[in-house]
């Protein structure tokens, strides 16, 4: 910084003290507002069954009790409701393969669209992108009809996790392709030319130039897909009518819709369902943001 600009900065009238106080007060007030549901979520889940009352919703718990979490996780045979443990594991078995598959597929598509443009690729790309904005209601009836008819080596796609994986991988093509295409578009053409001169072909360029540079792209895409697949309800509720195969969002909705399940158990269940994506957000928030921005087409 030159002396001149430093002078300029110093000459900027520093805001009044009380203005700063108001500023921070407003920011803190909003933070409290945003955290309010989390407070209820965490506090309610930690109360003992004796102290759970809707009329004391805002009171802190008397101590740490994990009974609600246990009940939400294991269910209760006596009261006749299922726990979320099966649903949680279903979501894991669904989300991990679907995320990996769609990231790999998106990477290949992005590579071709960024570096191997062909005639019509300019028309193709927006047509591809439109697929991520459509209301899935408009493809749901044919999707169910099609999945019901497909049976690969005895694996039925309708009502099963493989069917859900298929749906998420296919309808994930637009967003994963978009993110990778924008990511690869920033790789300098000189790098590719250089590797061409070294004799690399279409596969070699991908393997030795683009793929090694892809880690941040993969992280962004995988976080995006992980979050949206974990949080999906529409596909899950439509494709998996069988309780044994239902992911966590459907399990939680069933739990919450049942009149026999106490509300503290519902709250504990909500936290269990939210935890994986919350953890991803807390530890990898930076990349989460980049995915968000790509989602609004500003890659």
């Amino acid at each position: 910084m030159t002396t001149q600009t430093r002078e300029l900065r110093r000459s900027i009238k520093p805001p009044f003290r009380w203005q700063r106080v108001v500023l921070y007060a407003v920011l803190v007030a909003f933070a409290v507002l945003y955290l309010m549901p989390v407070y209820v979520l965490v506090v309610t889940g930690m109360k003992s069954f004796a102290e759970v009352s809707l009329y004391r919703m805002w009171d802190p718990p008397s101590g740490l009790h994990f009974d609600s979490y246990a009940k939400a996780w294991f269910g209760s045979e006596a009261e006749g409701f299922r726990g979320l443990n099966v649903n949680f594991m279903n979501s894991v078995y669904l989300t991990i393969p679907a995320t990996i598959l769609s990231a790999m597929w998106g990477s290949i598509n992005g590579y071709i669209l960024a570096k191997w443009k062909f005639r019509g690729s300019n028309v193709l790309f927006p047509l591809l992108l439109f697929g991520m904005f459509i209301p899935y209601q408009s493809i749901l009836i044919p999707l169910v009809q099609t999945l019901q008819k497909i049976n690969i080596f005895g694996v039925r796609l309708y009502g099963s996790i493989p069917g859900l994986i298929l749906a998420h991988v296919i309808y994930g093509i637009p967003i994963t392709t978009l993110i990778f295409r924008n990511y690869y578009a920033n790789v300098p053409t000189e790098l590719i030319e250089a590797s061409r001169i070294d004799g690399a072909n279409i596969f070699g360029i991908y393997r030795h130039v683009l793929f090694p540079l892809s880690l941040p792209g993969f992280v962004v895409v995988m976080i995006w897909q992980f979050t949206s697949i974990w949080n999906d309800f529409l596909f899950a509720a439509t494709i998996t009518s069988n309780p044994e195969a239902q992911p966590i969002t459907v399990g939680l909705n069933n739990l919450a819709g049942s009149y026999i399940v106490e509300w503290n158990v519902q709250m504990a269940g909500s936290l269990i369902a939210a935890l994986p994506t919350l953890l991803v957000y807390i530890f990898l928030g930076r990349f989460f943001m980049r995915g968000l921005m790509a989602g609004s087409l500003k890659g």
Partner: protein
Amino acid sequence: MPRLNWERVVSILLIAPAVIAIAVFVYGFIGWTAYASLTKWDQLLPDFTLIGFSNYQKLFDSSTLQGQRFQIDLRNTVTFTLLFLIACLVIGFLLALLLDQRIRGEGIFRSIYLFPMSISFIVTGVVWRWLLNPGGVELGSTGVNLLFDMLGLGFLKTGWYTDPKIGIMAVAIAATWQMSGYTMAMYLAGLRAIPYELREAARVDGASELQIVRRIILPLLQPVTLSAVIVLGHISLKIYDLIVAMTGPGIGFATDVPAYFMWDTTFRGNHFSRGAAIAIILLVMVAVLIVPYLVHSIRTEAEL
């Protein structure tokens, strides 16, 4: 035309599976749904006898039950979209503006405003259903109403989603909680792209802070506002999960929306052709919003 070399062929072969998948699962299926909406398929087993546009006609005919429900749905969608959009834009812009004042702990504030985005609408719905549960007259208030009582703001108490008049507003509150951080993040990124000197020059010229916001910042952030309106708008037209988890269709369909009606009538009522018609109307609504934006973004990005 350039020589057709083997790498060209391979590149086409590599992109082909995605192109075919999208052609079939997006465009083919939309065509299938559109066709189904013209048939009399009204039970579990498909019946592809064409009957023209009568499914659509009935949806816009207020003498039929489905017509009445659909009109309430459309009104709800408009109300919800307006409330949700305005709330997200105003709160998002305000928070971005405040956070741009060289705030200590900016990262923490940003994370707090943004974290609801990482959560499923189902979780949001379940939590807010309890928060906005008004409680009873005899037994006392619960949730936010109880909080109002405790803070001496009892006059603010309302029936939230149990009140048919404002039910959809309660859903918009939950949706705003979840998505306003997203607008904040977009506006903040936009603000950071405005050169500091621009605002400084205006300040030196004696412009007030409010004038700077109105005359410089808002016009420069217009593209961000447009993007936010498009993204939030299409989410709001499609809103479904939140309704399922929070309220369901409500008393007198007070919180019903087309996406919910579609699922309900198709997969619970087996009125497949009616569901297909609603789905196509929903698609057209989203397309009206998205297609111009898509074309515009592609053009301005140029030379893709």
